[in-house]
């Protein structure tokens, strides 16, 4: 056991790196230096990170405007070093519509949780996609209202125990989990709809590709790109971050399978 248990601020962390080595991965420069307020292991942080990494790689920091939701990611603008607006609960895609229409040549995205996008904001979601607004909608589906203390969301699984379904969600009483991404595919305005994950490295790599594609489609003014990320909420699910991996794979993914739901024709 080490003698000293606490890490000093100025202490040099990690290993000495051989000077001949290349740096192959580092924190995206479009992330601010502010440490995330998210719970340990929360998928929101991973999505923020990948999104900023893509903005870095495409060199579009000055060209991108984001809209944050109400939910745990309400403070997304503290971490994303781009111009941003904070919308009222559920209205992010409506605000993004406004921004995009005033600035049609900028890249615009909305970032929303499932309570935000698929409950209070259902109308805005459907109509934004139906109008084929030329924006990217990012949808972080963790099957719960994370921020307010783990209440049941429309996306919660059958049998899922939450603070408002202490005996597990029952379809007879509150309906079935809503698969909003699948629903949106029916709308002609939806150009690209995909469902991704961030709980393993390959999932993160694929999300990154989907993000790059979406920004390219936006540049070509193709219509709405919609990326759902099946994510976790260790605090709301009352699990350790590592336990959430198993839960996503065994419980969430059968309901919300990973992959493209609607891809551009030809």
């Amino acid at each position, binding site marked *: *056991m*080490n003698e*000293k*248990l*606490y*890490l000093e*601020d100025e*202490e040099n*962390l*990690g*290993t000495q*790196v*051989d000077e*001949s*080595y*290349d*740096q*192959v*991965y*580092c*924190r*995206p420069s479009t*992330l601010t230096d502010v*440490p*995330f307020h*998210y*719970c*340990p*292991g*929360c*998928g*929101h*942080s*991973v999505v923020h*990170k990948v999104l900023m990494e893509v903005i870095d790689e495409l060199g579009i920091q000055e060209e991108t405007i984001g809209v944050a939701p109400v939910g745990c990611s309400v403070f997304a603008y503290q971490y994303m070093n781009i111009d941003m607006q904070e919308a009222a609960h559920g209205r992010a895609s409506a605000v993004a519509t406004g921004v995009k229409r005033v600035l049609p040549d900028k890249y615009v995205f909305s970032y929303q949780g499932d309570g935000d996008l698929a409950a209070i904001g259902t109308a805005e979601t459907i109509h934004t996609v139906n109008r084929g607004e030329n924006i990217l909608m990012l949808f972080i589906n963790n099957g719960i209202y994370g921020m307010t203390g783990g209440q049941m969301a429309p996306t919660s699984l059958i049998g899922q125990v939450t603070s408002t379904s202490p005996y597990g969600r029952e379809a007879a009483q509150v309906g079935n989990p809503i698969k909003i991404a699948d629903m949106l595919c029916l709308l002609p305005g939806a150009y690209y709809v995909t469902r991704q994950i*961030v*709980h*393993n*490295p390959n999932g*993160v*790599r694929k999300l990154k590709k989907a993000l790059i594609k979406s920004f390219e489609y936006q540049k070509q003014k193709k219509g709405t790109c919609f990326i759902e990320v099946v994510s976790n909420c*260790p605090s709301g699910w009352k699990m*350790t*971050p*590592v336990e959430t*991996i198993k839960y996503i794979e065994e419980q969430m993914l059968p309901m919300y399978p990973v992959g493209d739901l609607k891809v551009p024709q030809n």
Partner: protein
Amino acid sequence: MAKGTIKVDGKICKGCELCIVACPQDALALSMNFNDKGYRFAELINDACTGCTNCALVCPEAAIKVYREPKPAKKVQA
């Protein structure tokens, strides 16, 4: 296999262990030390790292930097 290494920013690591399960080389573990937020932070425990970036990709805190030995071809060129 390429040789690699990583640097963990222990000050912002929250000890979630997602990097540990993502590492194919079992090269990571939580330290017995704590950072000033009270989290045990991740650190390399052996020299098996190949610089595959898996740990860094899943790290929610963007706390990991990855380094890799340059490819031999590149070395010759240099």
